[in-house]
């Protein structure tokens, strides 16, 4: 295993959902995601008024890859990491900041939303999320029953012929 899997479920997951919901409300951003370092979405929230989000899988993959490349660049320059990334376009912007070195908080918003407000609230949320991440418990072991193999094989046949 190269990257640890985050066992985000139950109470921890509910806490993360609440923090993201609060952040969405406080900042006025469109989409708010927590992504793991492998590029998988752990949790996401979107504003009620926001249009349909882009493909979140692709967003998460690109965010995590970008963060990995930026971290590698930081190491080459003698820094431990560059913790935050901001990309601003004409219509919108994306803000990404590391959470406890294991996840990435990602906010996507319109350019009319003040960046200062986003950063201020994001940092408060990151402090709260860091506590949640540090207290994650071991993932429960899933016991797949004997049919797992045949079920999976049948699905693979359906998908790939």
């Amino acid at each position, binding site marked *: *295993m*190269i*990257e640890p*899997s*985050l*066992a*985000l*479920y*139950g109470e921890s*997951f509910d806490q993360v959902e609440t923090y993201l919901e609060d952040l969405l409300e406080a900042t006025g951003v469109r989409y708010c995601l927590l992504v*793991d*370092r*492998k*590029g*998988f979405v*752990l*949790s996401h929230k979107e504003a009620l008024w926001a249009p349909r989000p882009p*493909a979140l*899988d*692709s967003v998460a*993959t*690109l965010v995590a*890859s970008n963060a*990995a*490349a930026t971290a*590698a660049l930081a190491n080459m320059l003698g820094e431990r990491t560059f913790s935050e990334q901001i990309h601003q376009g004409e219509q919108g912007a994306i803000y990404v900041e590391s959470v406890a070195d294991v996840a990435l908080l990602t906010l996507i918003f319109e350019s009319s939303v003040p960046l200062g407000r986003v950063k201020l609230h994001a940092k408060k949320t990151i402090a709260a999320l860091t506590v949640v991440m540090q207290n994650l418990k071991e*993932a*429960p*072991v*899933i016991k*797949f*029953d004997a*049919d*797992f*193999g045949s*079920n*999976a*094989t049948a*699905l*693979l046949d*359906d*998908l*790939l*012929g």
Partner: protein
Amino acid sequence: MSTINFAAREINCKIVYYGPGMSGKTTNLKQVFAKVPSHLRGEMVSLATEDERTLFFDFLPLDLGSVQGFKTRFHLYTVPGQVFYNASRKLILRGVDGIVFVADSAPNRLRANAESMRNLRENLAEHGIDVKEVPMILQINKRDLDGALTTEMIRAVIDPRHELQWHEAVADQGRGVFETLKTVSRLVLERLAKGQ
């Protein structure tokens, strides 16, 4: 290890296509993208140069369906094959659950195949992983080339102990693409079922 999201009841598995430059890694993904029904796959993302050489990676998410109550997904990645993009290759190997090594049958690519496999072993070792710990399939591509290297010769340099399952392929015609993906997916799920 596959990422299991208990809250969303999702299992996510990362499969990486590795191999020398121009061996057909991106072609494999393009074939999968073209042939899998659109409701079972996401968008294909390609970070490529203007001349369509992979710069960072290609990415394609696939939905397998629900296995024992868990929505199971495969995330397919390619690495850039060109030698000088090694930093990118290392990053993409993070979190890998299964590998397809795409070898090139062109007569002048035997050394490139061997060097790419050595590079894979080194990059995995840097992440603290023995190559034997990761489910891996060998795809011997471009079998339609005139003067194609024999499969024995390619296996002799890439997998001399004959430990890997392998498939012949002509990826640009779709031959061997799904067979390879199916085999590596099965190995990844078998490993998951064992709780590894």
